[in-house]
């Protein structure tokens, strides 16, 4: 039997509020294990709330008009000369141009080296018995397809609220998170962007504390009247 548990409601949940005040453009709760996408207009701020704590939100970003220009973990890391995302990190495209900026971050550091889980990589990491566990790559493919994107458009992603330390000898791994219920990250769009989120369904590593919980996505327009 394939175990597919998730927690949709719990007393410890904290749905928090938008990090940057402004007119509400969008407010959506991403169900545990589900995919979600939206276009965030230039200047608007996307707040992602870790409702249940330590729930990885796998994230890809594309120019809203030219999908060929997309988030590049490598360009971002090279430009800031640091492997971790923090407040002030500018999320660059593969052409080296700004897509979004991290304008608020309530977790010590955010990951962009751990990649997304997939059914296929699950077979490598945990064994072939995990082949039928749902995975982020599935969410990316289905959510991407709504925008004409396919496997050729999947690249190294961001994992909001996930913790991947790199040790001195190069050993790296997904370890217990540093987030908590209600913690937020806020991203300002530097141009119109398409954001795709997979609320990670992984149940074989601590990227979500082995318990998928909701993520809240709020978009505000700081220049609009709240």
């Amino acid at each position, binding site marked *: 039997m394939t175990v597919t548990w998730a927690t949709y409601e719990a007393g410890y949940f904290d749905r928090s509020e938008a990090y940057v005040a402004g007119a509400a453009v969008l407010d959506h709760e991403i169900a545990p294990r589900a995919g979600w996408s939206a276009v965030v207009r230039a200047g608007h701020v996307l707040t992602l709330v870790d409702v249940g704590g330590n729930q990885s939100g796998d994230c890809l970003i594309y120019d809203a008009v030219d*999908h*060929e220009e*997309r988030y*590049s*973990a*490598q*360009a971002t*890391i*090279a*430009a800031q*000369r*640091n*492997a*971790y995302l923090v407040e002030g990190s500018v999320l660059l495209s*593969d*052409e*080296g*141009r700004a897509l979004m900026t991290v304008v608020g971050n309530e977790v010590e*550091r955010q990951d962009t*080296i*751990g*990649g*997304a889980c*997939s*059914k*296929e*990589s699950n*077979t*490598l*990491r945990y*064994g*072939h018995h995990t082949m039928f566990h749902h995975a982020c*790559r599935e969410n990316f493919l289905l959510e991407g397809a709504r925008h004409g994107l*396919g*496997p*050729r*458009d*999947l*690249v*190294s*992603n961001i994992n909001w609220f996930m913790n991947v330390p*790199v040790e*001195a*000898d*190069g*050993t*790296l*791994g*997904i370890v217990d998170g540093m987030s908590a219920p209600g913690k937020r990250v806020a991203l300002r769009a530097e141009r119109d962007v398409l954001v795709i989120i997979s609320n990670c369904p992984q149940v074989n590593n601590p990227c979500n504390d082995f318990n998928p919980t909701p993520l809240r996505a709020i978009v505000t327009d700081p220049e609009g009247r709240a």
Partner: protein
Amino acid sequence: MSNDLGAGRRASTATPAQARDDARGRAGTAVEAMPYLPPSSSPHVPDGVDPGDLVWAETVAGPGYAHATLARGSRIRLEDVTGDACAHVVLVSALQRSERLNVADTQKIPWQAYLGAGHPLLSGDGRVLATVVADAADGRHDAFCGVTTLASNHARYGAGEAHSATPAGRELLRLAAAKEGLAPRDIPPSVSFFKGVRVGADGALEWTGGAGAGAAVELVAEVPLTVLIANAAHPLDPDDRYRTGPLRVHAWAAAASSPADPWWTATPERARAYLNTQQHLLARGIR
């Protein structure tokens, strides 16, 4: 040998016959960066390799790019001739173009961020595209930073176009991809050989540079494989003059990895990656 970047006018080319004679008179010039045809004629055959087994022999200009589609079992040797090369490599399965190098999985599956001998270069489909089978470059490689961009090279060197003296790695990869029928969206994050980066406890990147002249790595293609290479300055290279040098590429018919190779069973994750690859090929009748 010279770097022949165009010798210019040498004789009258007023008539087709004169132009033909002039054009033909230019051949046979030996320069540093050029392909060797047939590959067995390479003046730099790697030690222990039968020249008759070579399928690709080329010295890639620095900066410059190269590309090839190779059979499963091809062994690919990259050599940093002067110590100033940086080989940015993208791998795409020739069986299905949507299956390509996945740098995150290449670091995550082996629980190891740094490339070295025995490291599998994984696709996003749970399979091994190629294996780093030998590393004579002291691990001076990088999977974090990728290539420079037009924007970053404009900011740093004043130009980054392919036609400029300081081309961005991404511009060169776009060209290599196009020659193999691939579009920009087919260029995923890449790995860089011969220029190293290490990550500090606080995440800060430390440049460790190259291993000097003659550094080399060897890869084995585990599936029919399209290889894209941009030889261009590394994004973190501290030399503001745009460090670059010739990159030597040789490939020859050899054997894909087998369970007898130590890296096949080095970790349980890798063993399953090779098993997935083996089944993928088995089903297609590829031995």
